[in-house]
Structures are given as structure tokens and as C-alpha cells.
């Protein structure tokens, strides 16, 4: 079967039309392709089944976007495929999101502050990539806006000690809003932060 022709998100009716086959024949073909890894299905029971068909084999990945989308109410469409093999947790995902400097990814990643378990690891990673001020600023922002876990005081203080005179831009986009505590440009509006709570 030409997968390119049916690639994308499809319902069974659409596939019947596209392939000009009966419903049962399409289901048989879909079952075959699912076994080969080209199809994943969402929905079922009360919801309509939607088939995600790709020309490449779909693998279950565990990367930054998967972790963010698992914990955040705001979902992010991956700008690239990220797969982590071996040690990779919430702390790594948060640091990677800060390094990416994408506004929406950062906004969604704020929710991860409520799931951080290893603050020491988080601060070491921030030190490694020299993004301690950005981390501290986003933590304060998350703490003011949504439910988060409390960062140990010694770690918070060590982040604060890295505050510089130069205003740091957290995201690629320019912003007029500056957090004076951290001297960082904040790329979110009040409306953005409100959406995190909803």
C-alpha cells in the first residue's frame, strides 16, 4: 500500500474513500500496518478512532517534548524529534526547554517545577550550561502563577548569586516585561500564565 497517499491523521471513513475499499478490507490493511509499526491509534470506546499514519516506523520515544506534554496543560508540538536513551528525567527536560529558548515550550515547561524531585541535579545541570539565572527567574515566575514544589533555600540562593547586570533574554522573542529581581526579560503575558492554570 502506498503510505504516502494515506499519510496523516485519518478516520476509517476517510480511508475507505481514499483507498476505494470496503470498511472491513481497510481494517484488515490497517491491522497489518499497525503490526509493522506504521500506524498508531487514538480514541476508541465513545470516541472516534483516529489513525496516525506515517511513512516511517513509529517508535515510543521518551524525550523533552514527551515529558513536557505529560505534565503540562499547555501542549507543545515538537519542532524536532527528541529521543533520550538512558538517564533522562524531568530535570533534564526543564533544562533542555530553557536551552531551546522557544516561548511556548518554556511556558509549558513551567509546569515541570511541580514535579522536580532532584533539585541538586537541576542546579548542577543549570550550572553546566550556564543558565542559572534563567532557571531561577522561571522558578519564581512559576511559583507566582501555578502550584510548584519549593526549591531548597541553599539552591535558590546559589542561583540568585549568579544574577548579572546585563539583562538576560530567556526566549528568542524580545519582550518589554523585565523581572527586576533576576534582571531577565519575561516572554509571557498575564494571559499566557493564566492559561497554565486553566
Amino acid at each position, binding site marked *: 500500500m502506498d*503510505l*504516502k497517499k494515506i499519510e496523516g491523521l485519518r478516520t476509517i471513513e476517510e480511508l475507505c474513500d481514499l483507498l476505494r475499499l470496503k470498511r472491513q478490507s481497510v481494517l484488515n490493511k490497517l491491522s497489518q500496518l499497525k503490526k509493522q*509499526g506504521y500506524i498508531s491509534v487514538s480514541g476508541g470506546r465513545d470516541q472516534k478512532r483516529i489513525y496516525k499514519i*506515517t*511513512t*516511517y*516506523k*513509529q*517508535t515510543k520515544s521518551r*524525550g523533552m517534548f514527551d515529558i513536557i506534554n505529560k505534565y503540562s496543560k499547555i501542549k507543545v508540538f515538537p519542532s*524536532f*524529534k*527528541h*529521543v*533520550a*536513551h*538512558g*538517564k*533522562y528525567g524531568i530535570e*533534564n527536560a526543564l533544562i533542555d526547554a530553557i536551552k531551546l529558548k522557544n516561548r511556548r515550550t518554556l511556558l509549558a515547561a513551567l509546569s515541570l517545577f511541580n514535579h522536580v524531585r532532584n533539585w541538586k541535579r537541576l542546579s548542577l545541570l543549570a550550572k553546566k550550561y550556564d543558565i542559572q539565572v534563567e532557571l531561577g527567574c522561571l522558578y519564581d515566575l512559576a511559583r507566582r502563577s501555578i502550584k510548584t514544589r519549593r526549591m531548597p533555600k541553599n539552591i535558590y540562593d546559589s542561583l540568585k548569586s549568579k544574577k548579572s547586570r546585563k539583562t538576560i533574554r530567556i526566549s528568542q522573542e524580545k519582550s518589554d516585561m523585565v523581572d527586576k529581581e533576576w534582571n531577565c526579560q519575561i516572554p509571557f503575558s498575564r494571559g499566557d500564565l493564566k492559561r497554565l492554570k486553566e
Partner: protein
Amino acid sequence: MIGKQEQDELFELVSSKIEGDIVCYAFGGTALMYYGYKESTKDIDILFEREDDMKVFIKAINELGFKKRALAGVYDQDRIENKDKPLMFERGDARFDLFVKNIFSTEFTEEMKDRSRERHDFTRKDYTLTVMVISIEDLVILKSVTNRENDYADIQMLLKKSEVDWSIIVDEAIRQKDRWTILDLEETMQRLKKDFYIPKKYFDKLHKSI
């Protein structure tokens, strides 16, 4: 031959031996496996931006028993004499072809870097080995340049299975300092024209640039 799972396990093992974070770029059969278009590959093609990163990588694979081997028998004489030839390391069925900055005469540009579509992080101990997978368009260029029979078959397979943006391919070939890249690409496109639709404007653009 090495399969995707074995390749991932190997990268994870290498990550346990490296002494510093490394970023490298996968192309050739390795990239095709990551896209799910190939089940196995003869060699793991990797490019490093920095020579220091390659040294760290080589030290790690030496610890795993990989030994340096000669290029003869794998690449033709022209490529063996090329200044941007790879270093090859082998252990049993697995072989690494390691390049720095350029792949033979083709320059790995900033645009190619930015177009990378996948990122795989391997962390078993303290350091991370990041493998970026280059875009399908760049794979078409590199496979046109290497121009072996298998490479042409791979390009055909890529065009059958995925959408490629010819403007990216043509622009990148023109951006290359080495004029042979344009000539090799044009030759490949002429062959592909029999089976695939490639708008004439892309041929015109290539012809004008020569």
C-alpha cells in the same frame, strides 16, 4: 551489518566511556535507520564539528575494542586521496566512519545543522553523547555526492516514502564551495527525472549557478 537497536545500544555504551559531552551528526545509513527507512546498515556514518570531540569519541571506542582500519576496499582511490576522508574503526560487524567538518569535499554548513530533524541523547553515566540526525534533503545531497549504486537506490527510496523540498536541496548545493556538488546533484536529478516529477525551474537554477 548493524540494526537500529544494536546501534542505539552501541551509542549508549560509548556514552558510558566518553569524558565530556559530545555532539555529532548522523548521516547515511545511520540516518535512514533513525527515519525508519532502513533495517540495518554496513557502517555508522558520523560527522563531528570539532576535532576534539572526535578525539574523545575515538578514545571511547578504542576502549570498547574498535581498531583503526584502512580505507582501501571500501572507498575508491579518489576518495582515499581526498583531504576530508573519514577515519574508519571496526570491531566485528560494526564499523564507524568518522568525519570532521566536511564529508569528502562537501561542506557541512550551518544551514544543514539547523535543518537536523531528530536529536538522540545517550547518557549512561556522567556525560551525554548527542546524535543529531540530518534532514532528508541533506541526505539526498550527500548521497548524490557519494554516488555509489546503493546510494542512488537509497535516494529513490527516500523520494518514494517522503516529501522532499527540492528548493532546499538545490539552494544547498549552490551554497557549497565545491562545484562538483552541483554537477553530481544535477546528474542524479537527471536520472531521477525518469521516475519522479522534478520541476524544470530547479534544473534551470542549477544550470545558471555553474
